[in-house]
Every structure is written in C-alpha cells, then in structure tokens.
C-alpha cells in the first residue's frame, strides 16, 4: 500500500513522538506592567484577549478592526514603528490564517504584537496609510500566503516571479516546489515543446545521478568526463597523494603580523 501523506500539510514531521508526550506552553502572564496596562485600556473593548508572552504584550483583535486598533496604538500609545507583519498558516487545523503586527514604541522601548485571524480567502485591510513599511511587508504577505490586502497601493508579488503559481509558505506547498515549479524554467527558457527532451527540473539538492559522469564522479570507479558509466565496472585502486597534511588540531593561533 502507498504510504499515507496528509494533503493539508506536506511539511516535514517528526518520525517518532511519544504517545504520552504533552508539549508544555510558554507562560502567558497577566498584564501588570504600567505601560502595557495603559495600552490595553486604550485599545478597550476591541481587545479580545491580552497577555504578556516573553516580555511583549500580545493583543488579540478582530481582523476587521485592525486599522482602528493599530491607529489607536500609533496615535495614543506612541507605537510609531511597525517592525514586522506576517501570517501563520492554520488552514489545516482551523481553516484560518493568523496574522500578526509587531509594533515598536521607540520612546518607551516596548513592543506589542497585535494578532488577528482571517478565514481562508478573506481579505485584510492594508495598514499602509499608517506605516509605510507595510508596503513591502504586505506584498510579501500576499506573495507567500496569497492573502489579499485591500487598498494596498501596489499589491504585486515581491520575492517570487510575477507569473509564479502557488504561494510558497502555505503548509500545502512542498519544500522542493510543486509540479509547476519543476517545469517553470524549462518552459520559460526553451518552451513547452522541449519538455520531453529536457525533462523536469530536479529540485532535490541532495540528488545524485550515478549514470551522469559529467556532474558526478565516484571514488574508485572514475571514467572520463562524459563517458558512459558501465554497469559492472571493477574498482580501480586509489592513489593517495603523499603531501603532508596541515595539522589543524594545533592549538597555536596565527600571529596577525605574519600576514603583512
């Protein structure tokens, strides 16, 4: 029987997990810091949940409120910089994306993470009117997850080519790339009619082809460059060189002056 591979996540999984293993959780502390209490009060009822995780305030909000809440944080609480924004793919488990906005208050040296969730296919409102850094960050978000961003000035792929299909950071996208990826360069450079001659691109970096004497050699079974590799070739003796090897175990460090 073929091995079962779940379709909703093709990421690498641990080959063994103890039956009784329960992962602990990073403690989520109550908001006690004076500044953070003021921030939570300013956000008010829009905050669904708030706690402090590893020294940073996390506020969960509704995705539709994102621009309202972040505007409050920027104008009332002094969070003048949006360091980062991106998403986490929870489509397999909840059918949702988790979006986060990482904000920084330069004067207080405090960081807040605003977290919201959107359903698959739902758009999110752009925060480019508030932070210009969102311009690139939201393009990357769109490129990597396919999340549409409303009212973005120039929503276009940023890291992948414009005519790429698929969104690489989704859990359903394999690490080596999909069918489209393996034909992309062949189609682009030579044309579709050359597919049979060239074959799909090998996207496995650890791939070794024993038959290919142009790019691979085999110690003890060397053949001239480009020659056919015979099926049952006998092993040749290896001639080791007699050069003395450098002793890399020596504890002595190099004297800087010697390089001059």
């Amino acid at each position, binding site marked *: 029987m073929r091995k079962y591979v779940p379709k909703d996540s093709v990421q690498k999984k641990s080959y063994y997990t103890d039956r009784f293993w329960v992962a602990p959780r990073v403690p989520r502390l109550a908001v006690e810091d004076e500044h953070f209490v003021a921030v939570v009060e300013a956000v008010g009822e829009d905050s669904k949940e708030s706690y402090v995780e590893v020294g940073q305030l996390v506020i969960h909000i509704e995705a539709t409120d994102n621009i309202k809440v972040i505007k409050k944080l920027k104008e009332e609480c002094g969070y003048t910089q949006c360091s980062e924004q991106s998403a*986490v793919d929870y489509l397999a488990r909840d059918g949702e994306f988790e979006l986060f906005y990482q904000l920084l208050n330069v004067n207080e040296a405090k960081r807040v993470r605003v977290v919201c969730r959107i359903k698959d296919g739902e758009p999110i409102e752009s925060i480019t009117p508030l932070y210009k850094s969102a311009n690139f960050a939201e393009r990357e978000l769109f490129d990597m997850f396919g999340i549409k961003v409303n009212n973005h000035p120039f929503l276009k792929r940023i890291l992948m080519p414009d005519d790429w299909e698929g969104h690489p950071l989704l859990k359903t996208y394999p690490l080596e790339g999909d069918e489209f990826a393996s034909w992309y360069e062949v189609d682009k450079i030579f044309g579709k009619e050359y597919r049979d001659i060239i074959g799909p691109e090998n996207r496995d970096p650890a791939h070794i082809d024993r038959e290919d004497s142009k790019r691979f050699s085999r110690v003890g079974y060397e053949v001239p460059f480009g020659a056919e590799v015979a099926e049952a070739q006998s092993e040749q003796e290896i001639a080791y060189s007699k050069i003395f090897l450098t002793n890399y175990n020596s504890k002595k460090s190099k004297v*800087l002056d010697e390089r001059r």
Partner: protein
Amino acid sequence: MQVSNKLTPFFENLNFERDDKTMVINFGPQHPSAHGQLRLVLELDGEQVVKAYPDIGYLHRGIEKMAENMTYNEFLPTTDRLDYIAATANNYAYALAVEKLLDIEAPRRAQVIRTMLLEINRVISHLFFIATHALDVGAMSVFLYAFREREFAMDLMEDYCGARLTHSAVRIGGVPLDLPEGWLENAASFCDKVDYELEHTYNALLEKNRIWKMRLEDVGVLSTEDALSWGCTGPMLRGSNVNYDIRKEEPYELYGELDFDIPVSDRCDSYGRYRLYMAEMKQSTRIIRQLIPLYAETTPELMAHSPQYISAPKEEIMTQNYALMQHFVLVTQGMRPPKGEVYVPTESPKGELGFYIKSEGEPYAYRLKCRAPSFFHTGLLQEILVGTYIADVVTIIGSTNIVFGEVDR
C-alpha cells in the same frame, strides 16, 4: 510586465524612449553598485529620478520555508546565509530567539565570547560598508585599506571557529568552543589597530575630503518620521536623529553591564550615516576591550545546562548513560521547545534583526519569520530616490547598506 514568447523575446532593458519623454532604465541586477542582486527600475526625466521601483527576489532561497522543515539545530548554519557579511550576528539572533523560547540562558563565559564575536562582526560589517560605499562613490583606495583591516578581523574569526565568512560560531544555548591560546591578545592588538587606522587612514582619507563631502552631504535625506514609518532601524534610524539602539534599550547578552555610547546624527543624510558607522566602530573596539578582562573571571562552562533541550557536555555523555540517551534523542529527533510564540529583536550591524518563532511543541518550527533590516531599507528606496539625480542613486543605495542575502532570504 512584458509578455515574451518566441516571436517577441524578453528585453532586459525595457523601452528606453517613450512618448512622455521619460526614460526607463534598469539599474542592476548586474550593476556593480547594486549590492548583489538589486534590480532597480528607474524612470528618469533627464537625469532626475521620477519613479523608482526596487525589484527584489533574485536571491530568494526560501529560508523561512526551510526553517519549517528543519530541526532547530539543523537550521542554525542556514542563518549564516542571511546577512553573509556578518554571519555571527544572524546565528546569534536566531539562537537567542530559541533560547528565549526555551527560557534558558547561556553561561557567563559563552556570553563573553558571544558578545566579543558580535562586536568583531560589527567591525567586519562596518569596514565592509566603508569600503564598498567609498568604492561606489569613487574613492578606490579606502576599499584597499578597509579590506586589509577586515582581513585581520576575519583572521580572528577563523582562529576561533575555522570559518571566515559563514561562521556558525554560536550554538543554541552557548558557544561550541573555548577561545584558542593567544586569541585575546590578538583581539586586543586588533582593537588598537582598528582604532589607529580609523583615526589615521579612514578619517584622514574621507572625513574632510572635498569630493567625498560633496557626494554625500545632503544626499539621501531621510526625515525622522519617514525613518520610523518605513521601518528603518540601526544606523539608518540613528542617522535620522532617533536615539534607539536595541543593545542599550532592550539589553541582551552582556550589553547591560558594559559601558558604551550610542552615536546619533541629526544630519539625516548620507554623510551623517557615514560618520555614524565610523563612530560605531570605535564603540565596538571599546566594548571588546572591556570584555577581555571579563573573560578571565568566568568558569569554563560553554553550554547552558538544560538536558531536555541541550546535549550535556562530552564528559557526561561519555560517562553517564542517561546523558547519552538524551543526547541520542536530541540528535536524532531534535529538541522540542514548548508551545508558544516569541519575537526577539537584536541589533545586527545593519539594524534590527529579529526572529519570530511560532512553536507548536514539535521539533520543527511551525513558522519562523526573519525580520531583516535590509528588507525594509530596500522598501525605502522607492521613496527616497524620487527627485534625486542618477549619480546620487549609487550613493543612496550604498548608504542604506543593504545585503541581499537578508533582503531576499
């Protein structure tokens, strides 16, 4: 976007002549001043830039995707390839993020070594900046001198970890090796050398150089609001009169107990940023000098003691059965951090390098986001270049100090 097929091939340099008398040119990705793989599409009116569009992604290797498919320790050498000019800064930022997630702290000696390595990497990166920036602007000789000193710093790194560019000199929970004999003396003499050369070579060549000042002064002016709004960090932010350095404001490692200053410039232009880089190198050597006596006071532990996550020292593995079993599980399966998310910012030579890690209790990170400073500095180019002249474009790109390993990831 051109639609290319067999009849109409793809033209690298798009339409030069258009009806509205502006010219569209491709700056890069092969331009020597494009810092690697930047393709900048510039719309020019005469020699003035009307529109700039940075096109990135030529060096995209999917490092964040790789992180989801590797155990935490496996991923560490991959972080070298982010900002390859100062690899230890990336290793450290990643290791610190995982340590925060695991809630462990490196032993004192490891902290001293790490802080020294970070500062040496800062000097390496800044010297590289001065060298390439001056070369881009047209001052060839600075490049030769700066690379000479950078070579000494790389010798120090090589003596410590064996690698010159991709160091992987930091591990999650500490450092793998102790310092070799004579390393501290070499580091001290290196500091003296850098300080001397800063004063007598670079400053003498550039500081009051008429051409250098004409090319840099009032070029690439970035206001404080724009710097904050565009997500600028590091020297770009401090060059725009914001006194914010993560080493000082949110101290990590030993920076809390060290005595150093944060240079800030209120000029908001390329010349101010250049001065800032020079001043920061001086502070780095000052930090290394303070760390040298601290090393002698430490005990020889190099890795944190946390058997659930970090392999025990070699003696324990070789003598105690349970330590060997734990080591075996950690090597074959990888460590399983607790569930949770963490964002840890560090001050890399280019700016705020942060790692966001979302863990679901698996040996593989559920999501890892690398917040690279250069990515946001590249985004800034589309605004800061508008209205400048084509000759200044090179100065401004050089001044942002972007490295494409971390822009494209």
